[in-house]
């Protein structure tokens, strides 16, 4: 590097305004191709990075604020408190300690940890194939233990911990050991937790102060999405895993992301939203996730726009009536048969904050239309994490609620007292069975045959315009384009756009479907390479390696080759060194200064 080149570099770094220096640099750049190329390289890098910062859309901004809301509430509340003299809490603590010592001294016995009668878990979303009455039971009650069947998911708030939220993925059993500070026992299954305050899971020796994490009891795996936690003597930070590699799954991470984005337990007045129909992801317009249909969710009363994923996506404005069950009509004609189950929730809503008596026995009732904390039900289907299905799950140790067994419950919202009978809630997908509306594939001509129908390029231009302001609208238009002109040149672009849009809103299955359709089509497009690459990135963990191998065979000159090769080498290195060595060697041969090179060198030398 000549001294003139060094001066160019320094001028770039310091951004000098000295006229003489600027003149010298300009003169040098005019005849030095090497320096010009270097400057152009940095300009191009800067340009590429600047292009990546599209401002966040309204929905994302609102979602982030909503996610931070519990912590901000807490901060604001703390700040709003008048300043407390330092000695006052200390005096209270001393007085309390003295009172405790006197009390137990007088009793002559040690304190025992209460393990029963802690009705602190308050479910507000019940998703899965269980009956309407089972869902009603859950949403009506408070429980000290939740037993969730396979293929089902329950989201719950915690009475004693306003900032805590749990999602239980069945088959699972979670019990409350202590209410304050919250201690749980995860006997089986998967538990997703957001907790801004102290929380322990006793049987997995897990302690956290403020974290979002997932625990899978069967796989003995913990994944931390936010914050950090102590697992025995080990500290697991955000993004970290603990437990056997084989038990780590992308599904767990996806479920945790959904959990973090899930709707919060609603404040009163609230009503129940019931969505029937075949399995599809449901969310509300703000971006908050409800869960997979069929589901029942307690949501704030008032207007709501519900979005159910699918082809086409169903977007329904609906008015949620307080203390009522509102059915969302589905495109396929299915509706929740809320009948008497609704009345139970109504009844429970009327006393939603009242105490309930613990129930200590199990019994059976013939009808599914019951409301009670001790529900037992058959299970169907696979869980979200691929667990074995078909075993009965039991939810016990739970409290009875204001609603009563069949026949004893008034639908006027007033609960009958003390009739919390133990019941069996029959399982079964009694609300499913409808089939999704099929799409209309045409041969490239407009299906409607309208004379004034927009052309494919007009539709695509409309979609591009909408992308800036209304992504859902853009998706609708792109869907129309594909429906009317599936063989048009714009179809591939539309599919690629749809995949990216679906991915951006977290709907990976829809993104995969769009990419698969693009890759199946015979269209010769420059998008095949990026589409195939994206498809591999969105593949299930088990399919990713074969997918990337096929990608390398089909797109040998791809710009993504270095990334794919690095991924394959890293993936192989996680299991067998011998498999990783040739890939790492190839990476080093082809991309010796690539970002993966240091790790590739380690892999190439591993034994």
């Amino acid at each position, binding site marked *: 590097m000549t001294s003139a080149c060094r001066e160019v570099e320094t001028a770039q770094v310091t951004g000098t305004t000295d006229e003489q220096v600027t003149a010298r640099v300009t003169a040098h750049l005019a005849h030095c191709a090497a320096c010009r190329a270097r400057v152009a390289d940095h300009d191009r*890098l800067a340009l590429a990075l600047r292009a990546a*910062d599209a401002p966040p859309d309204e929905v994302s901004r609102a979602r*982030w604020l909503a996610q931070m809301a519990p*912590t*901000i*509430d807490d901060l*604001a509340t703390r700040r709003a408190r008048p300043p407390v003299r330092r000695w006052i809490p200390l005096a209270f603590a001393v007085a309390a300690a003295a009172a405790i010592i006197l009390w137990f001294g007088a009793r002559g016995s040690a304190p025992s940890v209460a393990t029963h009668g802690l009705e602190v878990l308050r479910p507000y979303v019940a998703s899965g194939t269980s009956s309407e009455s089972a869902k009603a039971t859950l949403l009506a009650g408070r429980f000290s233990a939740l037993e969730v069947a396979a293929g089902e998911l329950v989201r719950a708030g915690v009475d004693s911990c306003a900032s805590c939220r749990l999602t239980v993925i069945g088959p699972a059993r979670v019990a409350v050991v202590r209410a304050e500070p919250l201690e749980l026992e995860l006997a089986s299954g998967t538990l997703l937790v957001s907790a801004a305050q102290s929380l322990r899971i006793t049987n997995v020796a897990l302690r956290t102060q403020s974290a979002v994490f997932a625990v899978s009891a069967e796989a003995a795996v913990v994944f931390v999405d936010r914050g950090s936690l102590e697992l025995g003597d080990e500290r697991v930070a955000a993004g970290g895993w603990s437990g056997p590699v084989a038990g780590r799954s992308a599904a767990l991470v996806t479920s945790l992301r959904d959990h973090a984005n899930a709707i919060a337990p609603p404040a009163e007045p609230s009503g129940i939203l019931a969505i029937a129909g075949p399995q599809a992801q449901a969310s509300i317009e703000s971006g908050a996730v409800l869960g997979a249909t069929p589901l029942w969710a307690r949501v704030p009363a008032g207007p709501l726009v519900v979005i159910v994923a699918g082809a086409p996506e169903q977007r329904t404005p609906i008015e949620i009536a307080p203390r009522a069950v509102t059915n969302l009509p589905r495109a396929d004609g299915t509706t929740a048969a809320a009948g008497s189950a609704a009345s139970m929730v109504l009844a429970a809503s009327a006393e939603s904050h009242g105490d309930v008596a613990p129930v200590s026995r199990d019994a059976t009732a013939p009808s599914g239309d019951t409301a009670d904390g001790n529900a037992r039900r058959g299970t169907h289907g696979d869980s979200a994490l691929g667990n074995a299905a078909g075993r009965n799950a039991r939810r016990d140790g739970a409290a009875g609620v204001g609603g009563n067994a069949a026949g004893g419950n008034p639908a006027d919202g007033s609960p009958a007292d003390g009739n919390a009978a133990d019941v069996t809630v029959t399982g079964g997908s009694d609300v499913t069975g409808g089939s999704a509306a099929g799409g209309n594939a045409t041969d490239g001509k407009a299906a409607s045959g309208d004379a004034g129908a927009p052309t494919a390029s007009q539709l695509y231009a409309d979609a591009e315009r909408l992308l800036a302001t209304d992504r859902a609208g853009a998706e609708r238009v792109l869907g129309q384009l594909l429906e009317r002109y599936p063989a048009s040149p714009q179809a591939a672009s539309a599919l690629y756009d749809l995949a990216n849009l679906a991915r951006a809103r977290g709907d990976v299955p829809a993104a995969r479907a769009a990419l698969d359709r693009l890759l199946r089509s015979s269209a010769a497009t*420059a998008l095949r390479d990026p589409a195939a690459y994206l498809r591999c990135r969105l593949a299930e963990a088990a399919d990713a390696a074969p997918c990337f191998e096929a990608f390398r065979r089909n797109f040998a000159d791809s710009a993504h080759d270095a*990334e794919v090769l690095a991924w394959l080498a890293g993936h192989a290195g996680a299991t067998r060194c011998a498999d990783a060595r040739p890939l790492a060697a190839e990476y080093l041969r082809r991309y010796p200064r690539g970002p993966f090179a240091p790790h590739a060198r380690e892999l190439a030398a591993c034994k």
Partner: protein
Amino acid sequence: MILLVLASLLPLFRRAERPQDAAAELVARALTGDRRAFDDLYRAHIVGAHRLLTRLVGPTPDRDDLIQQAFLEAFRSLASFRGDAAFATWLHRIVVHTAYRHLRRQPVRAAELPEDLPSLAASPEHLAHQQQELGRALGYLSALKPKKRIAYVLRVVEGMSLDEIAVLVGANAPAVGQRVKHAQRELSAMVERDRRRQEPS
């Protein structure tokens, strides 16, 4: 008398004119527990903070969490905002620290594809090209050490002066200059090597 009254009103007019004073007022309200003030601070600064964060760490899936982390950290330490600098500068310092902590945790790896569409008006082909360019740029950046990467992005992409960067990263300007220079050299070498490899032998 009139002059005295006018003189006492002058600070009020000044406050209305200066956005940093508006932010300082919001901070003062937030410090008294005004819940709405937190939201207003967030709304006023989210776009700038998000842009800076995106440029520093790239459009990774972790960005949503990082931006929330930065704001929560800012809200928790509002009491330490003394008003010496603009609130945006103070917040950006926290964003830079958040990005630094994140980058330090990351292993050296290939760049992630952006989550968002970079240019919403572009055609998919153009978009794909942009994504490839971005992926390549992020790939180069991810090979840099976090301090160099941050200094480079703030200087070359954000166009900040060395003094401004020094304030944000808590270092002196000459040290920042060295970081930028080293980053430039390393990046130039990487780009050059890739270029040579792609040329027909």
